[in-house]
């Protein structure tokens, strides 16, 4: 079924990221594969970004690329290994500069902290800069319920908000749409004349967003990094909206996952060197706002109140999980999404989670329960493009396999499949068992094969294979049978 933006969508924005659990990718993946627009947009944009990333890495780092990535990985590992120390250090440094630091154990606590701050400040009009972590805690809906009008000011997020749609990529949230969708949303929701002209569209957005900034008394942002040394919150944006949020309204709240800490400015420099390059192919994002504290005496801008909400929401469980801890290294650059052949085909919404793509397939079950996403770690060919693209050296295929191992151990894989694997392995552990099993397989498959040596249809578990391709039949004589002849006569 193909869908256009104006047709009724099956899921609400909320359901797209928070589907009924357990969620499996199958149905949404099938819909995405049937959606020619999504196929074109997502495939085109991700490939372009991925090519750019490779070029830029080559140009910027050349032979040092592997070394800087390993270094960045070590920085993150070091920080995670003593996260309590750095959290403490951050809180102390930030408080000393007048920032109010809050700790939220889960989404509910984070929401109530934010709502409390808004209520105490008497804030009713909120502007937001792009933040996945606020999606994770479903903040917008809570703000609206509390009577705080909330406007997303990142252009992509703004359009998604108008469209009642949800982000499908952690960096380019409306990767599944194009500018005609923007034109339609603007004419439908804002009463603007329909246009596809990028400059006109930008002008409309600018006009609307300026008005929102003007009236705002509260800004909510995420944070790309937290610097423990001086309590700074770092946000990297391209449209200037992040800086407007950081400087204009009188109250600013930054909601940040605890894994976003780096020890000091030197470490931050390494991360900034990598983030924009792997994310969008830029040397730096257009705006990098490093803010450590509310407006000081004699300063011309900045909020009167700066709050940082440190969000756990399952992260310390991942931190305690030695095998999976590396997943917390992620700096949300989106490179693994762009590189992933599966993501390119099924788009972000198929993952049914805030964080899609390879990192999402690893992180989502850890944050929201392994049983809630039974097949996310299975929906991967383990091609390794994600690990290759990762700027902080997260071995994502290994983590996906670790999830699979847990599924097997917890018997979340059907007994038939487990039995097949165990029998198969047993057969492979003996020379004669292997030969006999192979003989049986050859016989069956060759009998089913056509004159050209291809099997067109397989029953049972093999059905998935022949659904989309034939199976070449095995050779009449396997190699080991040829070996005798081959070893008898020595050529040359």
């Amino acid at each position, binding site marked *: 079924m193909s869908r256009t933006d104006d047709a009724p969508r099956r899921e609400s924005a909320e359901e797209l990221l928070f589907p009924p659990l357990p969620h499996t990718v199958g149905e949404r993946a099938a819909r995405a594969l049937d959606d020619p627009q999504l196929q074109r947009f997502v495939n085109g944009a991700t490939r372009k970004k991925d090519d750019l990333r490779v070029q830029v890495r080559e140009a910027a780092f050349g032979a040092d690329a592997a070394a800087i990535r390993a270094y960045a990985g070590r920085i993150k590992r070091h920080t995670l290994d003593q996260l309590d120390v750095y959290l403490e250090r951050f809180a102390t440094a930030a408080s000393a500069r007048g920032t109010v630091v809050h700790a939220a154990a889960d989404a509910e606590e984070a929401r109530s902290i934010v709502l409390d701050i808004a209520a105490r400040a008497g804030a009713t009009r909120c502007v937001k800069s792009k933040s996945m972590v606020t999606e994770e805690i479903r903040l917008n809906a809570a703000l609206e319920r509390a009577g705080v009008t909330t406007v997303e000011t990142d252009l992509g997020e703004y359009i998604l908000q108008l469209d009642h749609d949800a982000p499908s990529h952690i960096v380019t949230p409306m990767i599944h749409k194009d500018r005609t969708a923007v034109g339609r949303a603007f004419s439908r929701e804002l009463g603007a004349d329909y246009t596809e002209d990028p400059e006109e569209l930008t002008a409309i957005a600018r006009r609307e967003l300026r008005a929102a900034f003007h009236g705002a008394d509260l800004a909510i942002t995420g944070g790309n990094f937290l610097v423990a040394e001086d309590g700074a919150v770092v946000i990297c944006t391209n449209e200037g909206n992040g800086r407007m949020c950081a400087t204009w309204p009188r109250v600013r709240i930054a909601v940040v996952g605890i894994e976003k800490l780096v020890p000091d400015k030197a470490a931050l420099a390494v991360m900034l060197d990598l983030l924009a390059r792997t994310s969008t192919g830029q040397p730096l994002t257009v705006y990098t706002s490093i803010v450590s504290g509310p407006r000081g005496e004699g300063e011309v801008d900045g909020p009167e109140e700066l709050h940082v909400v440190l969000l756990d929401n399952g992260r310390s469980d991942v931190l305690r999980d030695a095998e999976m801890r590396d997943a917390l290294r992620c700096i949300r650059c989106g490179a693994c999404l762009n590189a992933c052949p599966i993501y390119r085909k099924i788009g972000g919404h198929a993952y049914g989670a805030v964080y899609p793509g390879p990192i999402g397939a690893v992180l989502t079950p850890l944050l929201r329960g392994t049983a809630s996403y039974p097949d996310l770690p299975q929906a991967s060919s383990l091609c390794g493009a994600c690990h290759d693209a990762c700027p902080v050296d997260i071995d994502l295929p290994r983590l996906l396999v670790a999830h699979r191992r847990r599924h*097997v151990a917890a018997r979340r894989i059907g007994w038939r499949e487990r039995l097949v694997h165990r029998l198969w392995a047993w057969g492979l552990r003996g020379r004669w068992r292997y030969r006999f099993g192979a003989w049986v397989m050859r016989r069956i498959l060759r009998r089913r094969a056509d004159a050209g040596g291809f099997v067109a249809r397989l029953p049972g578990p093999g059905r998935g294979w022949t659904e989309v391709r034939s199976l070449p039949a095995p050779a009449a004589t396997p190699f080991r049978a040829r070996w005798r002849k081959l070893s008898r006569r020595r050529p040359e």
Partner: protein
Amino acid sequence: MKVALFVTCLTDQFAPRAAEATVRLLRHLGCEVELPRGQTCCGQPHYNNGYEGEARRLAKRMTRVFRGYDHVVTPSGSCAATVRHRYPELLTEGGEAFARRTWELGAFVTEVLGVDPSQLGAVWEGRVAVHGSCHYRDLPQGDTTLGLLSGVSGLEAVPLGPRGQCCGFGGTFAVKYPAISGALLSDKLAALREVDPIAVVCNDAGCSLHLAGGCHRAGMPLPFLHAAEVLAEGLGLMPRRPRRVAR
């Protein structure tokens, strides 16, 4: 130099000619090739699907079967990658050492034999599409397929795009997610139509099964070859397979 051939189960059953070409090529380069009879499978599918205990036992078995050989050479990139990349964690004892002794053919030719494949003097006329298996990412030498073919005179080797994109095989993934796997396959088939080769060269029996099955379904009866087959044919070590014309 004495080397043990690790055929791999898929190559043994589905592409024995690739193994034969590997043997002929290695002999041509002065190696004495032996085939340890007990060998079966490296355990890659079991490791990947989360059956660690099964994978570990198969890994242990591999080290036993290939005991005493300084060099274990395999025509399959993904099996070499499994041994090199995963055995050290699967087997605390001997995994690392065995990983170091195991070589994918192309890497063995350049790194151990010190042979520059471009100087072999093979002749093989025609245009081929070359599909690099994803698992070469896990090997320090990367994808050696194009390197092996670099000096073959008369050969036009065109990488099968899109760059670095998986063909959609992925072992059991191909069976569990036929629609997604098939969509990736379609991209490769479209690229194949554009290249219009007389054969496809791929050094991974799994990807070859998947791509060849896709070609057959799409009415493109292309032969699939291992780079060793091109070299062995091009050096006159084995007769050239009758050429079939695309479409």
